[in-house]
């Protein structure tokens, strides 16, 4: 396999061209907006929790195929899952990205996300793949802390408390 094929697996290109779960939906408890100042990639991601389950992850953003496909795969992996389960997948994905492509991915846990093992070989692109996952971790933590996931009324909180912005270091 030549270098770009390793990076641009068919699964990744499919998710990029036909993203799953894309679009911002309501209601939600927390929203995170993360940007990568190196390339201008952005993702806005919302999390809706109910009874300890990640009921929905909705997102919008602009960026390269890797960051956009990562958001689509993330949606497939975590929506409808208990938070613990979703966070375990988050951790597995971060580990996969930090092993410079040396890790043996857990296919059962990561499903389509194993296609990103090739991305880990390209240090400059790892942050693209991690962008939506970091936004998810951020929003999920605050959604869980909001207390609205304990069977109470789900409220929309598009206020300052419900949104954080974060950036990663880059050239510029």
């Amino acid at each position, binding site marked *: 396999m*030549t*270098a*770009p094929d390793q*990076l*641009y697996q068919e699964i990744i*290109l499919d998710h990029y061209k036909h993203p799953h779960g894309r679009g911002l939906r309501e209601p939600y408890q927390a929203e995170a907006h993360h940007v990568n100042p*190196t*390339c*201008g*990639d*952005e993702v806005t991601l919302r999390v809706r929790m109910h009874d300890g389950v990640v009921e929905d992850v909705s997102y919008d953003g*602009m*960026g*390269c*195929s*890797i960051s956009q496909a990562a958001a689509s795969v993330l949606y497939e992996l975590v929506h409808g899952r208990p938070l613990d389960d979703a966070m375990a997948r988050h951790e597995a994905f971060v580990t996969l990205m930090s092993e410079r492509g040396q890790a043996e991915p857990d296919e059962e846990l990561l499903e389509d996300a194993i296609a990103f093992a090739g991305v880990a070989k*390209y240090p400059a*692109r790892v942050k*693209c793949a991690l962008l939506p996952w970091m936004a998810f971790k951020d929003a999920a933590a605050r959604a869980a802390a909001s207390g609205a996931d304990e069977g109470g009324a789900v409220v929309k909180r598009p206020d300052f408390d419900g949104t954080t912005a974060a950036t990663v270091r880059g*050239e*510029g």
Partner: protein
Amino acid sequence: MGFDIEKIRKDFPILGREVNGYPVAYLDSANTSQKPRQVLEALEEHYTWHNANVARSVHTLGTESTTAYEGARAKLATFIGATSPDEIVFTKNSTEAINLVAHSYGARLRPGDEIVISEMEHHSNIVPWQLLCERTGATLRWFGVTDEGRLDLSTLDDLVNERTKLVSVVHMSNTLGTINPTEDIVRRAREVGALVMLDCSQSVPHLPVDVAALGVDFIAFTGHKMLGPTGIGVLWGRGEILADMPPFLGGGSMIETVTMEKTTYMAPPARFEAGTPPIAEAVGLGAAVDYLTAIGMPAIAEHEREITGYALDALSTVDGLRIFGPTVPVGRGGTISFDLAGVHPHDVGQVLDSLGVEVRVGHHCARPTCVRFGVPAMTRASFYLYTTRQEIDALVQGLNQVRKVFA
């Protein structure tokens, strides 16, 4: 001697290497240029045989080192048409040169004063002025950019007025490739008593630049984009203006007398070169200037004009490609930024790299320019004296490959 590109390329060993199994096509010289072996040898020669600190040693090595360092200053002065080597201040890069002016000249600004920049600046010619305005209460204003990627000078007489203290604009855009005409800006600035600074980071490496002919007050440029080492840049300033400016950084080498209460300062350029300067880097930059001068800046500019015309024609054959900036090789240099059918520049750059074609992707430290053209990022190919038509062909083939992958 004609312009012999094959001979020139032999001086750059890196151009003979492969990337991902393909001959490298280095199309990122606006980011940093490659270095000829003459520059690498000058660095090695300096460290191997002449190394010592400058301007403070009585011994032989110190004298040789000082002579080499000051010799480089004189070469730079001649290269840009400065009236004296004392008008050449060595900095670590263009960014520091601009910050030096913002701090030292800018210290006199007051609320109500205005600084004028443009929408096509590199962040290094935006942020120092924003910071200066925060410190002093001065106001920042800017020229817009036309759809063709030219500076919009229709607002010149309004923007540059009696309140304007300094106009600082880019000579050649690092994204659009536009070479900005400066005569009208200089004329208007003179009418209202404002100074003019040019960010020449992209022009001095590629065009004959003569500060006397430009009639400006400051220019900034950097060594690593003109075949020299990283870690050295230049601020040129008109002698009488530099002489009237307070120090930037304080420390060794910039003082006359220090008591525990008070210090008096050296005349420029020493006043602005606190601490041990980038000595070997200056020597290396001097060798780069020798190299460029031997080939001739007019010949280099002519080669780049020819290769840019070829590239503009070749890129126009790629479906879905949109060029940002001038699409004719007039009033522009060899830096071409573009969008390819909405494929994200990261993806464009990655596929090109897999074919050995090295381009820059992202916002190029000029985010307002990207915003002006409605995109978060651009792909940029940039050329130099060693760029060949074959490399442009490799770029075009690579772009067609990108379209296949993301069709």
